[in-house]
C-alpha cells in the first residue's frame, strides 16, 4: 500500500517539477511514456537494450569468474595475498573513466576493449569480497575433504562454493548495479549502439525526453532481472538454512 502511495507521490513531484521548469527541461511523465512507446515501436529500444544487456552479461561473467578465482587464491594463501594486495589497491582506487579511456586507447574502439574495461572496473571489488569469504572458510571442512580425498571438482562444488555463496551473491548484487552504470559510460565514449550511446546522442540534441525514456526503461529491466533472477537464486542457495521465525 505504502509503495503505491510512494509511487504516486513520485509521479506527483515529477509532474509539478515539469510544470514549474517547463516541458523542455523536465518533460511530463506522459511525454516520456510516449517517447518510450515510439522507440519501442521503431525497434530502436529493443536493439539498444539488447546490445547493452549483452555487454553487461559478458563483462559481469568475466569479472565474476576472474574475481572468484583470484579471490579464492588470495584468501587461501598469505603469499599470494601479500604479492597482489598492492595491485588490488591501485585498481580499487583507479577511476572508472581512466580504465575505460586507456582500454580504448590501447585496444581501439572495439567491443573487446569495452567489455574488458568494464570487467576490470568491477574485478577488484569482487576479489575483495570473495577473499573475505575464502578467509572465513571452515578449516574443519577442509580437513574433512583432505582426509576423505574428495576429488577437486566435487570439493569445489560441494565444499568450497557453498561456503562462498553468500559472498558471491553479495558480489553479484553490488556488481550488477556497478557494471550496468559503467557499461553506459563505455557506450557513451566508444560504442556505436546501446543505451549509453542513445543517451549520449540525446544529450547532444538536448532531448531530455529520450534520456528519461531510456533511463527508466533500463532501470525497469535491471529491477526485473534482480527480482526474477538474482533473488530466486539466492533463495535456492539459502534453502538449507533453518527458517528464521
Amino acid at each position, binding site marked *: 500500500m505504502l509503495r503505491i502511495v510512494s509511487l504516486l507521490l513520485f509521479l506527483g513531484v515529477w509532474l509539478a517539477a515539469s510544470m514549474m521548469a517547463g516541458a523542455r527541461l523536465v518533460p511530463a511523465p506522459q511525454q516520456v511514456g510516449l517517447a518510450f512507446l515510439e522507440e519501442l515501436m521503431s525497434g530502436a529500444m529493443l536493439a539498444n537494450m539488447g546490445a547493452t544487456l549483452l555487454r553487461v552479461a559478458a563483462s559481469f561473467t568475466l569479472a565474476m569468474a576472474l574475481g572468484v578465482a583470484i579471490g579464492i587464491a588470495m584468501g587461501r594463501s598469505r603469499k599470494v595475498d601479500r604479492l597482489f594486495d598492492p595491485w588490488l589497491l591501485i585498481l580499487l582506487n583507479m577511476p572508472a573513466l581512466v580504465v575505460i579511456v586507456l582500454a580504448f586507447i590501447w585496444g581501439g574502439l572495439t567491443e573487446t576493449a569495452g567489455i574488458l574495461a568494464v570487467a576490470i572496473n568491477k574485478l577488484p571489488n569482487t576479489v575483495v569480497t570473495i577473499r573475505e569469504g575464502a578467509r572465513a572458510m571452515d578449516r*574443519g571442512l577442509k580437513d574433512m575433504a583432505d582426509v576423505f580425498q574428495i576429488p577437486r571438482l566435487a570439493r569445489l562444488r560441494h565444499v568450497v562454493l557453498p561456503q562462498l555463496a553468500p559472498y558471491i551473491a553479495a558480489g553479484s548484487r553490488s556488481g550488477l548495479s556497478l557494471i550496468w552504470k559503467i557499461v553506459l559510460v563505455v557506450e557513451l565514449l566508444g560504442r556505436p549502439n546501446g543505451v549509453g550511446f542513445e543517451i549520449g546522442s540525446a544529450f547532444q540534441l538536448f532531448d531530455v525526453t529520450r534520456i528519461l525514456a531510456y533511463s527508466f526503461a533500463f532501470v525497469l529491466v535491471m529491477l526485473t532481472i534482480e527480482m526474477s533472477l538474482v533473488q530466486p537464486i539466492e533463495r535456492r542457495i539459502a534453502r538449507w*538454512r533453518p527458517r528464521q521465525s
Partner: protein
Amino acid sequence: MKDVSHAGVPDSLDVAIQRKAFESSSGARIEVMADLRFRIESAQTVAIMGPSGCGKSTLLRMIAGLDADYEGGIVREGQGRTGFVFQEPTLLAWRTVEQNIRLVMQRPDDQDALLEGILERMELMAHRRHFPGELSVGLARRVAIGRALAALPGLLLLDEPFASLDAPLIARLQAQLKAELALRPTTTILVTHRFEDALSIASRVLVFSARPSHVLADIALGPDVQADPARADAIRREIEHVIGQP
C-alpha cells in the same frame, strides 16, 4: 605408503615419533610427544587413553596426514583410505544427510547398496533428506560415523565419538559400530577418555603419559575381560592410577 597389492586388507600402522612440538601463541615451544612408539596390526581395534592435553587428537591428525610437522615416521601399509570421525560432526550444512555420505564414497553414483545399508543400520533412513541443521547432536554424530564407514576405509580414526551423548545413546551407538566393524573388519583407533568406551569396542588400550607423551601401558582387552566385570574394573582402576586423574 600406499600399496595397491594390499587392497582389501585393513591397514597396519607403525608409529615412531621422536618429537612433536607446538609453538604456543606466546612463542614458547611446547613439546607434546617424545619417543612415542607403537604398532597396530591389520584389523585391530585400539583405544587410546591419556590425560587431557597429551596430544591424542593431534596424533590422529598426524596419522591421517593432516599434520606433517613432526620428527619421526608413521608408516602405513594397506589400501590407504582413511575414515575419520572428528570431534565435531564436520558435516556440510548445505547438503542433505544422504549427499554428505555419498560425497566420500569412491563411486558416489554407483554404490546405492552401500549407502542404503549404512543408512539402514545406522537408523538414518528417515533422515536421509534432512539437512544437518535439523538433526540432534546424536544423529549428527551418527551421520559422521556413517560417512566414515561409507568411505570403506582401511583405517578408521574416531576422535571422542561418544562425547556429550547420553548413556543409552552411547550404548546403542557402540553396538552399531561394533556390528559394522564385524561386518567389515577395519583397523580402528578410538581416542576416548572413558574406559567404558574402550572396553566396549577395542581389543587393546594404549595409555599415554602426560606431555610430552609416550606409551605408558599397552593392555589387552579381550572378550574375556568384557565378560569379567571384576577384572575390567581392576584394569580401569589401573589406567586411572597411571593417568593420575579419576
